[in-house]
């Protein structure tokens, strides 16, 4: 009997030690777009720091902002920066602010399906905004044909496809449209979901991509990683320097580098229509949202440790998953900003 009790005590002690070792668990919630990257990072980081477990729920940017504001998670993540109203709500509730940390980059690409046209099309700002405002309705419109000399475009109606659910991909697309078209800015605006002037809504990148593949004469936008991984054809977009750029990891990072010079201290910056000869114009950061103060010092140090690692070693994992990595200037600035987390 004594031996059994002793054994039991040993088992309990060992279990207690193991439990204490893996006791620190941090939870986050938010954006779905960077989820594959984040889960890879959290996994790799856990391998290096066995006592730290980071749980991330990809419930969408809006949900992430809501949960981190309510304090039900330790950190949030979003594809579109928090607006002033949301920042104020956080400040009012907690008495301190919340910081944005860019992690990786994403981009939207214009995709289309025109029977008989296999060439990679060039799209000007006027063409893209015109199509989405419903002003350009035929494929052979001069605004499209002018940038695609030598391609014979049909006189068919353009069928516009957009995302139906609120998404960061839509945020990037409408942010870009708001910058290149004043009419879009005043009539529609930018956001995760908007009141579309024209078009059919489909759910998810796969929904939009499937609809475009199926429907002759269709035009829509797709997240770059989805297009790369599924070998989808997509067009070039004219950037602010006048060059037609095809989206790839390098041209997206170039857009971030172009914007880095004027990066505000809170990192809430839109890099659509960014300056730079090789910059792809429909690119964006995605951010971690980290509260500026933690009552629990171990949690704070763990999150700061992770962000530090993510900015250094973590960036080496990005390209394998088709995410564009942060430019050096931004990394240096973020490391400095990390000191503001207390």
């Amino acid at each position: 009997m004594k031996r059994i009790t002793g054994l039991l005590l040993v088992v309990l002690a060992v279990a207690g030690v193991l439990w204490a070792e893996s006791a620190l668990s941090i939870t986050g919630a938010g954006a779905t777009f960077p989820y594959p990257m984040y889960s890879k990072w959290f996994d790799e980081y856990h391998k290096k720091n066995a006592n730290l477990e980071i749980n991330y729920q990809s419930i969408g940017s809006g949900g992430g902002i809501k949960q981190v504001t309510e304090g039900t998670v330790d950190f949030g993540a979003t594809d579109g920066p928090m607006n002033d109203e949301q920042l104020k709500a956080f400040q009012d509730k907690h008495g301190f602010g919340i910081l944005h940390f860019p992690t990786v980059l994403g981009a939207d690409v214009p995709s289309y399906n025109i029977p008989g046209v296999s060439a990679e099309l060039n799209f000007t700002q006027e063409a893209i905004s015109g199509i989405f405002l419903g002003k350009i309705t035929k494929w052979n419109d001069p605004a499209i044909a002018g940038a695609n000399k030598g391609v014979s475009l049909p006189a068919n109606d353009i069928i516009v496809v957009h995302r139906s659910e609120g998404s960061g991909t839509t945020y990037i697309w409408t942010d870009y449209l708001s910058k290149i078209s004043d009419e879009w800015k005043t009539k529609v605006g930018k956001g995760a979901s908007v009141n579309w002037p024209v078009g059919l809504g489909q759910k998810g990148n796969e929904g939009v991509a499937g609809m475009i593949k199926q429907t002759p004469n269709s035009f829509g936008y797709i997240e770059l990683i989805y297009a790369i991984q599924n070998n989808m054809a997509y067009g070039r977009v004219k950037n602010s320097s006048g060059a037609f750029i095809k989206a790839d990891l390098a041209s997206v990072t170039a857009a971030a580098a172009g914007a880095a010079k004027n990066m505000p201290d809170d990192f809430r910056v839109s890099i659509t229509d960014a300056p730079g000869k090789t910059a792809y114009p429909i690119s964006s950061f995605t951010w971690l949202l980290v509260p500026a103060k933690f009552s629990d010092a171990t949690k704070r140090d763990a999150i700061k440790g992770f962000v530090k690692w993510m900015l250094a070693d973590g960036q080496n994992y990005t390209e394998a998953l088709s995410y564009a990595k942060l430019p050096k200037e931004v990394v240096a600035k973020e490391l400095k900003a990390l000191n503001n987390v207390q």
Partner: protein
Amino acid sequence: MATTTTTVPSAGPVAGLRSFLSRLREGDEIARMITFLFAASVVLVTLLLVFVLWQGSVLPRHKFGFSFFRTSVWDPIFGQFGALPFIYGTLVTAAVSLFIAVPLGIGAAIFLAELAPARISDTLEFFIDLLAAVPSVIYGVLGVFIVVPLMRQYIQPALKHSLGFLPLFQGPAYGIGFLTAGVVLAIMVIPYIISVSREVLLSVPRDQREAALSLGSTRWEATWRVVVPFARPGIFGSIFLALARALGETMAVTMVIGNTPIISASLFSPGYSIAAVIANELTEASSNLHYQSLIELGLVLFLLTFVLNGLARLLIVATSQRGRAMGHT
């Protein structure tokens, strides 16, 4: 359908208590209380649901009032929210689905219950129950990859060609829209109608059939004139179940309806339903007003279901009284 009620005579409070105690000892009273609790929980959950939806939609109720039901702009950026296109889309898709599913479903149920050999009937019933258990996202995928291309290439052009003079069948054929959503919903609800209606038809007493046959009616006459009217309340019940499913369906509808809040007489037009817009926008709602307007849409869907169910019950009462009156003459 006669109902019998039995009343237990009670003699004074002491005897009442004694009989209560004896029933308690025998377990009857315990069973009654437990099952009452279960039944009461249904009411409780319903009330809780309405309460939560009502509480969660304070902002838009105050800001828009009844114009929420009348306006058709849905603009999350500029904070304008109107439910009309979503109500319209929900009703139209449900109507299209019942228009297709009710004749098909009841016809199939009559065949299975009355005309088919038992072995075929039971085998088919197994498949029908299987269909009812398929997750709706599977029906959505089926819709996207099979129904949508068929609609765009064959069915919609054919309808346009033959019935194009009706406003119902005009406009460009995208393949998605009200009609396609209605068809996919019909495929989803048919198993419910068949399964429940078949059970109801099978439970019609043999005497009814035999009496009709002995009076010289043919097998079809006995089925159509006697068995089906007898089973009518249960058949209606199966249709309401189908209606409820069609009104609330989310995933399959959003995949094929086009998700565009417009009101159009054409069934070819893309549209939007209440359940679909809630599922699409709730997680990314940026402002409180947007979020709460979606919650209010939930309340609207609840009301819609409530009203339609009420109307349906009235319909049952009206038709079954007429049936009884006819039976007496």
